[in-house]
């Protein structure tokens, strides 16, 4: 009972800010007052007419899609090699690929800025994509290494004895069975890139900026509830991605067991 009460209290503490934000997003007031004096959708309307914010949202979505594609394209084969092949330096490569997970993002961001600036990468698409990859790639490698390592190795061997070339084994056996991990890795990459603010702050330029950075800048200069409305949109987006993944992963689980 006490444990239960504690859990409820912990959730309450974690969710309280979200509840405030949602309430304020529907406020009819011009300021961030709580409780809101009246309810309205006016701040959503303001948001969708705010060209700069909408453009940033589109940029962030494109960036997240590129980052996700790249991290899967690099991370999945790397994870497969680490999980399945025996080669010298395997442990070192795994450590190097996943180490950024352990560093504070501030340190990663500063490091990236120091390296990128001389090459003129700061404030460019490739620069932003590479910076986000520093966060998403380690995650994809970590998730997919586990996904591959937990597949029964006999299945791939069986396919090979039946005449499947290594490429056929990968596409007909390994990847379909690792699909739940693949979906989870893709969704996480997308959400992280879309939400990433700390590293992006170091890299964005005056002409190229992402949605979270725009939000951050907006709050510095304005005190109206439009950012709260934007926060609600982002929360809905995250929830729908998570639900979609849940559906897909739950689905593939039942298909492949």
């Amino acid at each position, binding site marked *: 009972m006490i444990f239960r009460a504690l859990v409820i209290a912990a959730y309450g503490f974690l969710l309280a800010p979200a509840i405030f934000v949602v309430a304020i997003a529907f406020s009819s007031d011009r300021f961030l007052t709580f409780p809101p004096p009246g309810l309205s959708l006016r701040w959503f309307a303001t948001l969708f007419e705010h060209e700069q914010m909408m453009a940033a949202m589109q940029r962030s979505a494109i960036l997240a899609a590129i980052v996700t594609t790249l991290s899967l394209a690099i991370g999945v084969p790397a994870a497969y090699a680490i999980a399945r092949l025996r080669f010298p330096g395997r442990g070192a490569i795994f450590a190097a690929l996943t180490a950024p997970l352990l560093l504070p993002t501030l340190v990663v961001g500063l490091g990236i800025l120091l390296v990128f600036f001389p090459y003129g990468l700061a404030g460019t698409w490739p620069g932003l994509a590479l910076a986000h990859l520093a966060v998403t790639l380690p995650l994809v490698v970590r998730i997919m290494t586990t996904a591959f390592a937990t597949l*029964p190795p*006999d299945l791939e*061997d*069986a*396919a090979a*004895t039946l*005449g*499947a070339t290594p490429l056929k084994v990968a596409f007909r056996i390994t990847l379909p069975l690792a699909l739940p991990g693949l979906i989870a890795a893709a969704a996480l990459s997308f959400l992280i890139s879309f939400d990433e603010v700390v590293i992006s702050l170091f890299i964005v330029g005056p002409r190229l900026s992402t949605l979270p950075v725009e939000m951050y800048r907006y709050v510095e200069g304005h005190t109206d509830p439009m950012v709260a409305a934007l926060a609600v949109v982002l929360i809905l987006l995250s929830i729908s991605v998570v639900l979609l993944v849940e559906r897909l992963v739950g689905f593939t689980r039942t298909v492949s067991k």
Partner: protein
Amino acid sequence: MARLALEGLTKAYGTAPPAVDGLTLEAEEGEFLALLGPSGCGKTTTLRMVAGLVPADRGRIRLGEEDITAAPVHTRGIGLVFQSYALFPHMDAVGNIGFGLEMQGVPKAERQARVAEALRLTRLEGLGHRRPRELSGGQQQRVALARAIAIRPRLLLLDECLSNLDAKLREEMRGEIRDIQRASATTALFVTHDQTEALSICDTVAVMHRGRIEQRGTPEEIYERPATRFVASFIGRMNAIDGPAPVMTREGPLGAGETAMVRPHRVRLLREGAAAEGDNAASGTVRRITYIGDIVQVQAATPLGPLAAEVSGASPLWRGLDVGAPVGLAWSSSDTLRFPA
């Protein structure tokens, strides 16, 4: 459908003593050869080398006229039935069985016909659209077998594929595997640690110990004329008497540093006072009486060490015999083998 020859096959994992150590073995075309040995003696490693899943450190593998030692797995055309079955969980039985044919590029119509044929042979008709998790252990085993034979392999390898089944099903499957193998005349290597299984279904048995073949022969040869002490004690039950001792063997009297061996069912049980027959005898006291199926084993403590005799359960000889009772044991020198200890 080809002759298999393994020559000096060797594989060591890391620094441990080699799992397979200079193994030489041949299976004739169409032969059903059992590879029999205790767990850990290197049977699976041998099969995996033949299939191409583990590279050999040394030695050659020949299949038919071809040297396949370095051939990639997917080009070998060898069917392997895994101990774990290794069925693809995301495909139904038809998908599993047809996978190899699809990889070989067999056209769809022919593929369907051959899958249906494999389903029929393994008595899986009507279960083709079930996924592995919807099948019982015995049915999964059949799918694994059907999948391996559907590709019409040049060689069929079976790795302890019956050991996860219950006793009755296991016996049934033995016969079916034998029939399927005979009908297709496929050379087959059947790996098992179960001597009854090996002796009952195979043409030839190769007994493996510590990565090598100790003896290769028909079940009768292996049982009646074991070539080494290991084969003698691994196959069937055996009494062992360490020399020197007053025991005559086939090869002469038992000396120091030698061991005499005689099967319990060759040892006669004598009631007290009966005259000893045969050229070896010992007297002792009963230690234990055990039923083994329809025979009864009487273990006795004798000056030569513990000795066991087996008699039919119907025999009057053991009736009324109690632990602690005095008994005589007698056996012939022609049934007594001698090995260096």
